[in-house]
Protein backbone atom coordinates (compact mmCIF):
# COMPACT_ATOMS: atom_id res chain seq x y z
CA UNK A 1 0.00 0.00 0.00
CA UNK A 2 1.33 3.40 -0.95
CA UNK A 3 2.32 5.57 2.00
CA UNK A 4 -0.04 8.48 2.49
CA UNK A 5 1.72 11.84 2.42
CA UNK A 6 0.51 14.26 5.12
CA UNK A 7 -0.37 17.64 3.68
CA UNK A 8 -1.22 20.96 5.29
CA UNK A 9 -3.04 24.03 4.08
CA UNK A 10 -1.33 27.40 3.72
CA UNK A 11 -2.16 30.84 2.38
CA UNK A 12 0.34 31.96 -0.26
CA UNK A 13 0.38 35.74 -0.55
CA UNK A 14 2.62 38.71 -1.43
CA UNK A 15 5.10 40.03 1.14
CA UNK A 16 2.74 42.95 1.82
CA UNK A 17 -1.05 42.95 1.53
CA UNK A 18 -3.30 40.36 -0.03
CA UNK A 19 -2.81 41.24 -3.70
CA UNK A 20 0.27 41.64 -5.91
CA UNK A 21 -0.47 45.24 -6.76
CA UNK A 22 1.32 48.55 -6.52
CA UNK A 23 4.78 49.62 -5.43
CA UNK A 24 7.35 47.11 -4.33
CA UNK A 25 5.69 44.04 -5.85
CA UNK A 26 8.15 42.11 -7.98
CA UNK A 27 7.36 40.79 -11.43
CA UNK A 28 8.16 37.31 -10.10
CA UNK A 29 5.43 37.61 -7.44
CA UNK A 30 2.76 38.83 -9.83
CA UNK A 31 3.65 36.29 -12.52
CA UNK A 32 3.54 33.38 -10.12
CA UNK A 33 0.22 34.35 -8.52
CA UNK A 34 -1.38 34.82 -11.95
CA UNK A 35 -0.09 31.48 -13.24
CA UNK A 36 -1.25 29.72 -10.04
CA UNK A 37 -4.75 31.05 -10.70
CA UNK A 38 -4.97 28.71 -13.71
CA UNK A 39 -3.71 25.66 -11.80
CA UNK A 40 -6.59 25.08 -9.40
CA UNK A 41 -7.09 21.39 -8.77
CA UNK A 42 -3.86 20.24 -10.42
CA UNK A 43 -1.53 18.06 -8.33
CA UNK A 44 1.74 19.91 -8.87
CA UNK A 45 3.18 23.32 -9.73
CA UNK A 46 6.41 24.18 -11.53
CA UNK A 47 8.47 26.81 -9.68
CA UNK A 48 11.79 27.91 -11.11
CA UNK A 49 12.10 24.60 -13.01
CA UNK A 50 11.32 22.60 -9.83
CA UNK A 51 8.18 20.42 -9.62
CA UNK A 52 6.51 21.15 -6.27
CA UNK A 53 3.65 18.94 -4.96
CA UNK A 54 1.40 21.92 -4.26
CA UNK A 55 -2.36 22.04 -4.97
CA UNK A 56 -4.09 25.39 -5.43
CA UNK A 57 -7.46 25.12 -3.65
CA UNK A 58 -8.83 28.65 -3.78
CA UNK A 59 -7.89 32.17 -4.77
CA UNK A 60 -8.69 35.84 -4.09
CA UNK A 61 -8.60 36.83 -7.79
CA UNK A 62 -5.74 36.54 -10.31
CA UNK A 63 -3.30 38.82 -8.42
CA UNK A 64 -4.54 37.75 -5.02
CA UNK A 65 -3.63 35.33 -2.27
CA UNK A 66 -4.00 31.58 -2.91
CA UNK A 67 -5.15 28.85 -0.55
CA UNK A 68 -2.77 25.96 -1.21
CA UNK A 69 -2.14 22.46 0.12
CA UNK A 70 1.29 20.84 0.22
CA UNK A 71 3.34 18.39 2.27
CA UNK A 72 4.77 20.12 5.33
CA UNK A 73 8.26 19.07 4.28
CA UNK A 74 7.86 21.01 1.00
CA UNK A 75 7.15 24.28 2.82
CA UNK A 76 10.78 25.30 3.13
CA UNK A 77 11.43 24.55 -0.54
CA UNK A 78 8.54 26.78 -1.60
CA UNK A 79 9.68 29.59 0.68
CA UNK A 80 13.19 29.28 -0.68
CA UNK A 81 12.04 29.23 -4.33
CA UNK A 82 9.61 32.12 -3.83
CA UNK A 83 11.22 34.44 -1.27
CA UNK A 84 9.04 37.36 -2.38
CA UNK A 85 5.91 35.53 -1.23
CA UNK A 86 4.67 34.65 2.25
CA UNK A 87 3.47 31.15 3.05
CA UNK A 88 1.25 31.36 6.13
CA UNK A 89 -0.31 28.27 7.75
CA UNK A 90 -4.10 28.29 7.81
CA UNK A 91 -5.19 29.03 11.36
CA UNK A 92 -8.51 28.56 13.10
CA UNK A 93 -9.43 30.97 15.84
CA UNK A 94 -11.32 30.15 19.03
CA UNK A 95 -12.87 32.55 21.53
CA UNK A 96 -10.34 33.84 24.05
CA UNK A 97 -11.09 33.06 27.67
CA UNK A 98 -9.98 35.33 30.46
CA UNK A 99 -7.35 33.92 32.85
CA UNK A 100 -8.28 33.49 36.52
CA UNK A 101 -7.13 36.34 38.72
CA UNK A 102 -4.45 35.40 41.25
CA UNK A 103 -5.20 36.62 44.75
CA UNK A 104 -1.93 37.30 46.53
CA UNK A 105 -2.78 40.43 48.50
CA UNK A 106 -3.31 38.67 51.83
CA UNK A 107 -0.03 36.80 51.54
CA UNK A 108 1.79 39.99 50.59
CA UNK A 109 0.39 41.77 53.65
CA UNK A 110 1.56 38.98 55.94
CA UNK A 111 5.01 39.01 54.32
CA UNK A 112 5.64 42.62 55.28
CA UNK A 113 6.15 41.53 58.90
CA UNK A 114 7.81 38.16 58.15
CA UNK A 115 11.43 37.39 59.11
CA UNK A 116 14.09 37.73 56.41
CA UNK A 117 17.19 35.77 55.45
CA UNK A 118 20.37 37.55 54.32
CA UNK A 119 22.67 35.53 52.07
CA UNK A 120 25.97 36.56 50.51
CA UNK A 121 27.20 36.15 46.94
CA UNK A 122 30.98 36.00 46.46
CA UNK A 123 33.38 35.23 43.62
CA UNK A 124 34.54 31.63 43.95
CA UNK A 125 38.09 32.73 43.32
CA UNK A 126 39.26 35.59 45.54
CA UNK A 127 35.98 35.75 47.51
CA UNK A 128 35.24 39.26 46.23
CA UNK A 129 31.63 40.38 46.91
CA UNK A 130 29.45 40.29 43.78
CA UNK A 131 27.28 43.42 43.67
CA UNK A 132 24.20 43.91 41.50
CA UNK A 133 23.40 40.21 41.08
CA UNK A 134 19.73 39.21 40.92
CA UNK A 135 19.04 36.37 43.38
CA UNK A 136 15.85 34.34 42.90
CA UNK A 137 14.96 31.80 45.62
CA UNK A 138 11.99 29.56 44.83
CA UNK A 139 10.37 27.45 47.54
CA UNK A 140 7.88 26.14 44.97
CA UNK A 141 9.30 26.04 41.45
CA UNK A 142 6.10 24.98 39.73
CA UNK A 143 4.09 27.89 41.12
CA UNK A 144 7.01 30.34 41.16
CA UNK A 145 6.62 30.99 44.88
CA UNK A 146 9.58 32.55 46.67
CA UNK A 147 11.53 35.77 47.05
CA UNK A 148 14.06 37.70 45.04
CA UNK A 149 16.38 40.65 45.41
CA UNK A 150 19.58 42.29 44.19
CA UNK A 151 22.91 42.05 45.99
CA UNK A 152 24.41 45.21 47.50
CA UNK A 153 28.05 46.34 47.45
CA UNK A 154 28.85 43.72 50.11
CA UNK A 155 27.32 40.99 47.94
CA UNK A 156 24.43 40.67 50.39
CA UNK A 157 20.76 40.27 49.58
CA UNK A 158 17.81 40.13 51.96
CA UNK A 159 15.13 37.57 51.08
CA UNK A 160 11.71 37.65 52.73
CA UNK A 161 10.78 33.99 52.87
CA UNK A 162 8.70 33.87 56.06
CA UNK A 163 11.10 31.88 58.27
CA UNK A 164 14.72 32.08 59.46
CA UNK A 165 15.69 28.86 57.67
CA UNK A 166 14.00 27.54 54.60
CA UNK A 167 14.13 24.70 52.06
CA UNK A 168 14.70 26.15 48.62
CA UNK A 169 13.73 24.03 45.61
CA UNK A 170 15.81 26.16 43.27
CA UNK A 171 18.10 29.14 43.74
CA UNK A 172 19.14 31.22 40.72
CA UNK A 173 21.80 33.93 40.64
CA UNK A 174 22.09 36.26 37.64
CA UNK A 175 25.19 38.45 37.98
CA UNK A 176 25.21 41.87 36.32
CA UNK A 177 28.44 40.98 34.51
CA UNK A 178 31.82 39.22 34.82
CA UNK A 179 30.50 35.87 36.22
CA UNK A 180 28.57 32.86 35.03
CA UNK A 181 25.00 32.48 36.24
CA UNK A 182 24.24 29.87 38.92
CA UNK A 183 21.49 27.40 39.69
CA UNK A 184 21.41 25.31 42.86
CA UNK A 185 18.65 22.82 43.61
CA UNK A 186 17.25 21.62 46.95
CA UNK A 187 19.24 23.52 49.53
CA UNK A 188 18.51 25.04 52.93
CA UNK A 189 19.40 28.70 53.33
CA UNK A 190 19.76 30.72 56.51
CA UNK A 191 21.29 34.10 57.24
CA UNK A 192 25.00 33.77 56.53
CA UNK A 193 24.68 31.27 53.68
CA UNK A 194 27.38 32.02 51.09
CA UNK A 195 26.93 31.41 47.38
CA UNK A 196 29.99 31.34 45.09
CA UNK A 197 30.04 32.33 41.43
CA UNK A 198 32.49 31.24 38.75
CA UNK A 199 34.32 34.03 36.92
CA UNK A 200 33.64 34.46 33.22
CA UNK A 201 36.62 33.61 31.03
CA UNK A 202 36.39 35.68 27.83
CA UNK A 203 38.42 33.02 26.05
CA UNK A 204 35.76 30.35 26.70
CA UNK A 205 34.28 28.57 23.70
CA UNK A 206 30.65 29.54 24.15
CA UNK A 207 28.02 28.44 21.61
CA UNK A 208 28.69 31.51 19.43
CA UNK A 209 32.41 30.76 19.16
CA UNK A 210 31.75 27.04 18.79
CA UNK A 211 29.68 27.62 15.65
CA UNK A 212 31.37 30.73 14.22
CA UNK A 213 34.93 30.69 15.58
CA UNK A 214 36.91 33.91 15.87
CA UNK A 215 36.48 36.15 12.82
CA UNK A 216 39.14 38.28 11.15
CA UNK A 217 38.49 41.98 11.72
CA UNK A 218 37.69 42.49 8.03
CA UNK A 219 34.85 39.94 7.94
CA UNK A 220 31.56 41.64 7.04
CA UNK A 221 33.14 44.71 5.41
CA UNK A 222 30.81 46.52 3.02
CA UNK A 223 27.67 45.60 4.98
CA UNK A 224 25.84 48.13 7.15
CA UNK A 225 23.96 46.71 10.16
CA UNK A 226 21.48 48.67 12.25
CA UNK A 227 20.71 47.48 15.78
CA UNK A 228 17.23 48.56 16.99
CA UNK A 229 17.47 48.19 20.75
CA UNK A 230 18.35 49.91 24.04
CA UNK A 231 21.24 51.76 22.38
CA UNK A 232 24.91 50.83 22.23
CA UNK A 233 27.30 51.96 24.99
CA UNK A 234 30.83 53.23 24.48
CA UNK A 235 32.89 50.07 24.84
CA UNK A 236 36.50 49.23 23.97
CA UNK A 237 35.34 46.26 21.85
CA UNK A 238 32.82 48.26 19.79
CA UNK A 239 33.00 50.85 17.02
CA UNK A 240 29.65 52.55 16.34
CA UNK A 241 29.40 54.43 13.05
CA UNK A 242 26.36 56.49 14.05
CA UNK A 243 22.66 56.15 14.63
CA UNK A 244 19.60 57.82 16.08
CA UNK A 245 17.34 57.84 19.10
CA UNK A 246 13.75 57.60 17.90
CA UNK A 247 12.02 57.81 21.30
CA UNK A 248 9.46 60.64 21.28
CA UNK A 249 10.62 63.58 23.37
CA UNK A 250 14.24 62.45 23.76
CA UNK A 251 17.45 63.76 22.17
CA UNK A 252 17.66 62.19 18.67
CA UNK A 253 21.48 62.07 18.96
CA UNK A 254 21.44 60.07 22.22
CA UNK A 255 21.74 56.59 20.76
CA UNK A 256 24.03 55.26 23.48
CA UNK A 257 22.97 52.83 26.23
CA UNK A 258 19.62 53.74 27.85
CA UNK A 259 20.72 52.67 31.35
CA UNK A 260 18.55 49.58 31.55
CA UNK A 261 20.84 46.55 31.55
CA UNK A 262 22.76 46.92 28.30
CA UNK A 263 20.67 44.61 26.12
CA UNK A 264 21.53 46.54 22.93
CA UNK A 265 25.23 46.63 23.77
CA UNK A 266 25.23 42.84 24.22
CA UNK A 267 23.38 42.36 20.93
CA UNK A 268 25.79 44.72 19.12
CA UNK A 269 28.80 42.81 20.42
CA UNK A 270 27.48 39.53 19.08
CA UNK A 271 27.25 41.09 15.61
CA UNK A 272 30.39 43.20 15.52
CA UNK A 273 32.62 43.24 18.62
CA UNK A 274 36.26 43.79 17.66
CA UNK A 275 38.03 42.80 20.89
CA UNK A 276 40.16 39.80 21.68
CA UNK A 277 40.43 37.45 24.66
CA UNK A 278 41.49 37.59 27.43
CA UNK A 279 40.37 41.25 27.72
CA UNK A 280 37.69 41.43 25.02
CA UNK A 281 35.43 39.48 22.71
CA UNK A 282 34.97 39.18 18.94
CA UNK A 283 31.60 39.21 17.12
CA UNK A 284 30.51 37.19 14.10
CA UNK A 285 31.14 39.99 11.58
CA UNK A 286 33.48 42.59 13.13
CA UNK A 287 34.04 44.35 9.80
CA UNK A 288 30.46 45.62 9.38
CA UNK A 289 29.51 49.26 9.69
CA UNK A 290 27.52 49.22 12.95
CA UNK A 291 24.72 51.70 13.62
CA UNK A 292 22.64 52.13 16.78
CA UNK A 293 18.93 52.97 16.71
CA UNK A 294 17.69 53.43 20.25
CA UNK A 295 13.99 52.58 20.53
CA UNK A 296 13.78 51.90 24.28
CA UNK A 297 13.26 55.05 26.35
CA UNK A 298 15.88 56.15 28.89
CA UNK A 299 15.92 53.89 31.98
CA UNK A 300 12.90 52.07 30.57
CA UNK A 301 12.18 48.48 29.66
CA UNK A 302 9.67 49.27 26.97
CA UNK A 303 9.78 50.47 23.38
CA UNK A 304 6.80 51.88 21.49
CA UNK A 305 5.75 50.63 18.09
CA UNK A 306 6.06 54.23 16.89
CA UNK A 307 9.72 54.46 17.95
CA UNK A 308 10.44 51.11 16.31
CA UNK A 309 8.70 51.97 13.03
CA UNK A 310 10.45 55.35 12.98
CA UNK A 311 13.83 53.65 13.58
CA UNK A 312 13.21 51.23 10.72
CA UNK A 313 12.39 54.13 8.36
CA UNK A 314 15.49 56.03 9.49
CA UNK A 315 17.75 52.99 9.12
CA UNK A 316 16.47 52.47 5.57
CA UNK A 317 17.27 56.11 4.77
CA UNK A 318 20.73 55.58 6.31
CA UNK A 319 21.23 52.73 3.80
CA UNK A 320 21.42 49.93 6.34
CA UNK A 321 21.43 46.51 4.67
CA UNK A 322 20.39 44.49 7.71
CA UNK A 323 18.38 45.49 10.76
CA UNK A 324 18.68 43.43 13.94
CA UNK A 325 15.49 43.46 15.97
CA UNK A 326 15.86 41.44 19.18
CA UNK A 327 12.39 42.46 20.35
CA UNK A 328 8.75 41.58 19.94
CA UNK A 329 5.60 40.24 21.53
CA UNK A 330 1.97 41.21 21.83
CA UNK A 331 -0.54 41.57 19.06
CA UNK A 332 0.24 42.52 15.49
CA UNK A 333 -0.32 46.06 14.37
CA UNK A 334 -0.58 47.43 10.83
CA UNK A 335 1.89 50.28 11.37
CA UNK A 336 4.87 48.16 12.37
CA UNK A 337 3.86 45.60 9.77
CA UNK A 338 3.96 48.34 7.14
CA UNK A 339 7.36 49.55 8.33
CA UNK A 340 8.91 46.06 8.08
CA UNK A 341 7.23 45.50 4.68
CA UNK A 342 8.40 48.91 3.42
CA UNK A 343 11.97 48.20 4.54
CA UNK A 344 11.95 44.93 2.64
CA UNK A 345 10.56 46.69 -0.45
CA UNK A 346 13.39 49.22 -0.11
CA UNK A 347 16.15 46.58 -0.02
CA UNK A 348 16.68 46.36 3.75
CA UNK A 349 16.13 43.08 5.62
CA UNK A 350 14.71 42.95 9.15
CA UNK A 351 16.12 39.99 11.10
CA UNK A 352 13.88 39.45 14.12
CA UNK A 353 13.93 37.21 17.23
CA UNK A 354 11.06 34.70 17.48
CA UNK A 355 10.56 35.41 21.21
CA UNK A 356 11.21 33.66 24.54
CA UNK A 357 7.84 32.33 25.64
CA UNK A 358 8.83 28.65 25.72
CA UNK A 359 7.76 26.93 22.51
CA UNK A 360 4.91 29.37 21.89
CA UNK A 361 4.11 30.57 18.37
CA UNK A 362 6.55 32.98 16.75
CA UNK A 363 6.01 36.50 18.14
CA UNK A 364 5.07 39.61 16.23
CA UNK A 365 6.87 41.11 14.30
CA UNK A 366 9.12 38.08 13.63
CA UNK A 367 6.00 36.28 12.39
CA UNK A 368 5.76 38.65 9.40
CA UNK A 369 6.47 37.11 6.02
CA UNK A 370 8.72 40.02 5.12
CA UNK A 371 10.94 39.39 8.16
CA UNK A 372 13.67 36.80 8.75
CA UNK A 373 12.61 34.98 11.95
CA UNK A 374 15.31 33.48 14.21
CA UNK A 375 14.94 30.79 16.90
CA UNK A 376 17.65 29.90 19.43
CA UNK A 377 19.92 26.88 19.70
CA UNK A 378 22.26 25.94 22.53
CA UNK A 379 25.12 23.51 22.93
CA UNK A 380 25.92 21.36 25.93
CA UNK A 381 29.39 21.89 27.32
CA UNK A 382 29.62 25.56 26.35
CA UNK A 383 28.62 26.77 29.84
CA UNK A 384 29.28 25.39 33.34
CA UNK A 385 27.09 22.54 34.60
CA UNK A 386 26.24 24.78 37.57
CA UNK A 387 24.88 27.61 35.37
CA UNK A 388 21.19 28.53 35.26
CA UNK A 389 21.27 27.77 31.53
CA UNK A 390 21.14 24.02 32.26
CA UNK A 391 17.37 24.56 32.42
CA UNK A 392 17.40 25.77 28.81
CA UNK A 393 18.44 22.29 27.67
CA UNK A 394 15.44 20.50 26.15
CA UNK A 395 14.49 18.28 23.26
CA UNK A 396 14.61 18.25 20.34
CA UNK A 397 18.30 17.51 20.14
CA UNK A 398 20.20 17.82 16.90
CA UNK A 399 21.98 15.28 14.76
CA UNK A 400 24.91 16.17 17.02
CA UNK A 401 23.27 15.32 20.35
CA UNK A 402 25.11 18.12 22.15
CA UNK A 403 23.01 20.66 20.24
CA UNK A 404 19.53 21.49 21.54
CA UNK A 405 16.76 23.88 20.69
CA UNK A 406 16.60 26.26 23.68
CA UNK A 407 13.59 25.57 25.90
CA UNK A 408 12.62 29.27 25.92
CA UNK A 409 12.63 29.65 22.14
CA UNK A 410 9.37 30.28 20.31
CA UNK A 411 8.83 28.10 17.28
CA UNK A 412 6.56 27.61 14.28
CA UNK A 413 6.37 27.39 10.52
CA UNK A 414 7.48 31.03 10.23
CA UNK A 415 10.96 30.27 11.64
CA UNK A 416 13.51 30.95 8.89
CA UNK A 417 16.80 30.28 10.64
CA UNK A 418 18.26 29.42 14.02
CA UNK A 419 21.28 30.86 15.82
CA UNK A 420 23.28 30.25 19.01
CA UNK A 421 21.41 31.92 21.88
CA UNK A 422 22.27 30.17 25.14
CA UNK A 423 24.95 31.62 27.46
CA UNK A 424 26.49 33.86 24.83
CA UNK A 425 29.41 35.98 26.01
CA UNK A 426 29.33 39.54 24.72
CA UNK A 427 29.77 43.19 25.59
CA UNK A 428 27.89 45.15 28.27
CA UNK A 429 28.24 48.80 29.28
CA UNK A 430 30.12 47.66 32.40
CA UNK A 431 32.23 44.93 30.76
CA UNK A 432 31.11 41.53 29.53
CA UNK A 433 28.41 38.98 30.42
CA UNK A 434 26.90 35.71 29.26
CA UNK A 435 23.23 36.20 28.36
CA UNK A 436 20.59 33.96 26.81
CA UNK A 437 17.58 34.42 24.56
CA UNK A 438 16.43 34.56 20.99
CA UNK A 439 17.71 38.13 21.48
CA UNK A 440 21.20 36.65 21.32
CA UNK A 441 20.46 34.17 18.52
CA UNK A 442 19.12 36.96 16.32
CA UNK A 443 22.37 39.00 16.15
CA UNK A 444 24.35 35.81 15.60
CA UNK A 445 22.27 35.27 12.45
CA UNK A 446 22.57 38.96 11.53
CA UNK A 447 26.34 38.62 11.78
CA UNK A 448 26.25 35.43 9.71
CA UNK A 449 24.07 37.23 7.14
CA UNK A 450 26.65 40.00 6.95
CA UNK A 451 29.34 37.39 6.34
CA UNK A 452 27.23 35.79 3.60
CA UNK A 453 26.44 39.12 1.94
CA UNK A 454 29.84 40.84 2.13
CA UNK A 455 31.03 41.09 -1.44
CA UNK A 456 27.98 39.29 -2.83
CA UNK A 457 26.18 40.35 -6.00
CA UNK A 458 22.95 40.69 -3.99
CA UNK A 459 24.42 43.62 -2.07
CA UNK A 460 25.28 45.47 -5.28
CA UNK A 461 21.71 45.45 -6.60
CA UNK A 462 19.43 48.48 -6.70
CA UNK A 463 17.75 48.97 -3.32
CA UNK A 464 14.33 47.42 -3.84
CA UNK A 465 12.35 44.29 -3.04
CA UNK A 466 14.29 42.20 -5.53
CA UNK A 467 17.50 43.10 -3.66
CA UNK A 468 15.96 41.91 -0.40
CA UNK A 469 14.84 38.68 -2.06
CA UNK A 470 18.34 38.14 -3.43
CA UNK A 471 19.82 38.75 0.04
CA UNK A 472 17.43 36.20 1.56
CA UNK A 473 18.36 33.64 -1.09
CA UNK A 474 22.07 34.26 -0.54
CA UNK A 475 21.61 33.85 3.21
CA UNK A 476 19.43 30.72 3.03
CA UNK A 477 21.86 28.93 0.71
CA UNK A 478 24.43 29.02 3.54
CA UNK A 479 22.08 27.40 6.05
CA UNK A 480 22.62 23.85 7.25
CA UNK A 481 19.93 21.97 9.23
CA UNK A 482 21.06 20.86 12.68
CA UNK A 483 18.46 18.12 12.81
CA UNK A 484 15.64 19.74 14.82
CA UNK A 485 13.15 19.98 11.96
CA UNK A 486 11.84 23.06 10.14
CA UNK A 487 9.33 24.09 12.82
CA UNK A 488 12.21 24.58 15.23
CA UNK A 489 15.03 25.78 13.01
CA UNK A 490 13.60 26.76 9.61
CA UNK A 491 16.40 26.23 7.11
CA UNK A 492 18.90 25.68 9.93
CA UNK A 493 22.01 27.50 11.08
CA UNK A 494 23.61 29.89 8.56
CA UNK A 495 27.21 28.88 8.11
CA UNK A 496 28.76 31.18 5.48
CA UNK A 497 32.40 30.68 4.45
Amino acid at each position, binding site marked *: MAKRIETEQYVLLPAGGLRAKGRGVSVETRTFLRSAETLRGTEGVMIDAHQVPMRVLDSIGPDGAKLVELPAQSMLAVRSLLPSLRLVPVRYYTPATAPLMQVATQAARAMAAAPTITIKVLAKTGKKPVAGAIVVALTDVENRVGAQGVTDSEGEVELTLGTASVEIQAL*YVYPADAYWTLRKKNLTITTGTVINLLSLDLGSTDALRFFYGSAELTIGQGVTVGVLDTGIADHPDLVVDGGANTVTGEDPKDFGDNGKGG*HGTHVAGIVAARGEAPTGVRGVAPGVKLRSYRVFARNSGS*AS*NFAIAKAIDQAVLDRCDLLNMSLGGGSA*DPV*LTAAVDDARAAGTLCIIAT*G*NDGRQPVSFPAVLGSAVAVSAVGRKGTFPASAAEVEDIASPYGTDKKNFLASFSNIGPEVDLTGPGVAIISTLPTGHAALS*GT*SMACPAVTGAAARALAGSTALKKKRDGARSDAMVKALLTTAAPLGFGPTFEGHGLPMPE
Partner: protein
Amino acid sequence: MSRSRFILRYRGRGPTPDADVARVSAVAEVVVVESTAKMLLVESAPALLQALVDSLDDWVMAPEHAFPLPDVRRRVERPPDVSDP
Protein backbone atom coordinates in the same frame (compact mmCIF):
# COMPACT_ATOMS: atom_id res chain seq x y z
CA MET B 1 -14.06 62.37 25.65
CA SER B 2 -11.04 60.13 26.41
CA ARG B 3 -8.02 60.47 24.17
CA SER B 4 -5.34 57.90 23.46
CA ARG B 5 -2.23 57.89 21.33
CA PHE B 6 -2.38 56.45 17.81
CA ILE B 7 0.02 56.14 14.92
CA LEU B 8 -1.05 56.96 11.39
CA ARG B 9 1.19 55.63 8.62
CA TYR B 10 1.03 56.59 4.99
CA ARG B 11 1.31 53.56 2.67
CA GLY B 12 1.36 55.47 -0.61
CA ARG B 13 4.38 56.42 -2.70
CA GLY B 14 6.68 59.06 -1.17
CA PRO B 15 6.23 61.06 2.03
CA THR B 16 2.92 61.93 3.69
CA PRO B 17 0.88 64.24 1.40
CA ASP B 18 0.73 67.79 2.78
CA ALA B 19 -3.01 67.94 2.13
CA ASP B 20 -3.65 64.81 4.23
CA VAL B 21 -1.49 66.10 7.08
CA ALA B 22 -3.30 69.41 6.95
CA ARG B 23 -6.66 67.66 7.18
CA VAL B 24 -5.57 65.70 10.24
CA SER B 25 -4.03 68.75 11.88
CA ALA B 26 -7.13 70.83 11.22
CA VAL B 27 -9.31 68.69 13.47
CA ALA B 28 -9.39 70.45 16.82
CA GLU B 29 -9.82 67.21 18.80
CA VAL B 30 -6.73 65.63 17.21
CA VAL B 31 -3.33 66.63 18.62
CA VAL B 32 -0.29 65.84 16.48
CA VAL B 33 2.47 64.87 18.91
CA GLU B 34 5.16 64.06 16.37
CA SER B 35 5.46 63.70 12.61
CA THR B 36 7.94 61.91 10.36
CA ALA B 37 8.21 61.48 6.61
CA LYS B 38 5.76 58.54 6.70
CA MET B 39 3.93 58.79 10.04
CA LEU B 40 2.00 60.92 12.46
CA LEU B 41 1.83 60.25 16.20
CA VAL B 42 -1.42 61.74 17.40
CA GLU B 43 -3.69 61.95 20.44
CA SER B 44 -7.35 61.55 19.69
CA ALA B 45 -10.55 59.75 20.50
CA PRO B 46 -10.41 56.45 18.56
CA ALA B 47 -13.76 56.67 16.78
CA LEU B 48 -13.13 60.19 15.55
CA LEU B 49 -9.67 59.27 14.26
CA GLN B 50 -10.86 56.07 12.60
CA ALA B 51 -13.48 58.04 10.67
CA LEU B 52 -10.84 60.53 9.60
CA VAL B 53 -8.41 57.81 8.47
CA ASP B 54 -11.19 56.03 6.57
CA SER B 55 -11.73 59.21 4.58
CA LEU B 56 -8.06 59.36 3.51
CA ASP B 57 -6.43 57.17 0.86
CA ASP B 58 -3.50 54.85 1.68
CA TRP B 59 -3.28 55.41 5.45
CA VAL B 60 -3.27 52.77 8.18
CA MET B 61 -3.76 53.37 11.88
CA ALA B 62 -2.75 51.55 15.08
CA PRO B 63 -2.80 52.38 18.78
CA GLU B 64 0.61 53.22 20.20
CA HIS B 65 1.74 50.32 22.39
CA ALA B 66 4.91 49.15 24.08
CA PHE B 67 7.14 46.14 23.58
CA PRO B 68 8.89 44.85 26.74
CA LEU B 69 12.61 44.31 27.00
CA PRO B 70 13.20 40.58 26.40
CA ASP B 71 14.29 38.63 29.48
CA VAL B 72 14.59 34.87 30.01
CA ARG B 73 15.58 34.99 33.69
CA ARG B 74 13.41 33.10 36.17
CA ARG B 75 11.41 35.31 38.46
CA VAL B 76 9.17 35.05 41.50
CA GLU B 77 5.47 35.38 40.83
CA ARG B 78 4.30 35.44 44.43
CA PRO B 79 5.68 35.30 47.97
CA PRO B 80 5.22 32.25 50.22
CA ASP B 81 1.99 32.16 52.19
CA VAL B 82 3.21 32.62 55.78
CA SER B 83 -0.24 31.80 57.18
CA ASP B 84 0.47 28.14 56.35
CA PRO B 85 1.31 26.16 59.52
